[in-house]
């Protein structure tokens, strides 16, 4: 497979989600594409089916954290110290659960090359030493498949829970504590790596996992133009982000 790779920089939540969707919409024109990016300012993305009640909206505003709803299911994610990937491919048939495993192999290969013992876990997670280091979400639309996910470079669970609400406030300390035991990051596993370096490691992981030949080529103008439209008319709107 030929796989186009985009080494992107850090962008707003609205642009990030708009660009991912535009890549999926334009899959037939641009071919299978892997994008590696970050978030600036930090943001919380919530899953398609979640309510914005999962988030302390006032606190997020106060902390300068953007809020966005994804087109993919799954849970709320605090995006700050991470490299995020998105990959668009022609639908690879079979059950969605199985295709998660195929694509998650890219992350597992990347983590393995960093000397860590990584495994697929549950529906959509990758774990190191039994702790979650990567969450992933996939959708199939417009004749293609989009999966995006994170690889945590560092994690501050206390900071994350300043913004994410918990189901039972009186159990807050207990819940935060249990998340601390279930989540890890590259830094916590002893790997110090720069953003740009990690992008390359991830690209190599996907190249290997998908047996792909990687190339870099400019993205056509219309992909950016459509992303701009989606950013303004969908992802930055209250109507979309607070719809559930």
């Amino acid at each position, binding site marked *: 497979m030929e796989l186009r790779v985009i080494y992107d920089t850090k962008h707003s939540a609205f642009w990030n989600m708009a660009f991912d969707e535009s890549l999926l919409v334009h899959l037939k024109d641009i071919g299978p594409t892997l994008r590696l990016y970050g978030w600036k300012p930090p943001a919380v993305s919530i899953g398609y*089916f979640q*309510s914005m*009640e999962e988030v302390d909206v006032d606190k997020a505003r106060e902390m300068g954290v953007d809020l966005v709803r994804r087109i*993919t*299911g799954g849970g709320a994610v605090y995006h700050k110290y991470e490299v995020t990937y998105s990959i668009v491919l022609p639908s690879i048939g079979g059950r969605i659960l199985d295709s998660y495993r195929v694509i998650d192999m890219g992350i597992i290969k990347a983590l393995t090359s960093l000397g860590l013992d990584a495994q697929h876990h549950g*529906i959509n997670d990758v774990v190191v030493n039994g702790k979650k280091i990567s969450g992933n979400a996939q*959708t199939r639309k417009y004749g293609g498949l989009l999966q995006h996910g994170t690889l945590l470079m560092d994690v501050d669970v206390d900071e994350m829970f300043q913004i994410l609400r918990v189901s039972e406030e009186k159990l807050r300390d207990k819940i935060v504590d249990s998340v601390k035991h279930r989540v890890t990051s590259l830094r916590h596993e002893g790997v110090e790596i720069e953003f740009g370096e990690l992008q390359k490691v991830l690209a190599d992981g996907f190249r290997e996992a998908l047996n792909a030949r990687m190339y870099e080529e400019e993205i056509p103008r219309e992909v950016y133009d459509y992303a701009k439209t989606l950013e303004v008319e969908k992802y930055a709107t209250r109507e979309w982000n607070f719809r559930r």
Partner: protein
Amino acid sequence: MRPGSGISEGRAEYKAGKLIKVRARFEDDTIRDIKITGDFFLYPEEKIEDIERILRDRRLDEVEDVLAKVFSDVEYEGISPEALAKVIREAWKRRS
């Protein structure tokens, strides 16, 4: 809402691999309005709006059959017709 109008709201949640949350308004044992949220996966995603619409004005004893039918042409993870029916019943029990 007028007291004695028979309309009550109930909320419940359940973890079936992923979290399923239901918030519904009932009139006796009939669903008048329902919102299903959570961190599950359902394909195609837009089907959730259909499911909420189809559940409106259904009696509780119809829910299992309705969900079995509507889930037959979707792919899902972390949610199932059985689990969702269970949360809806729980929300009904907890209505106030």
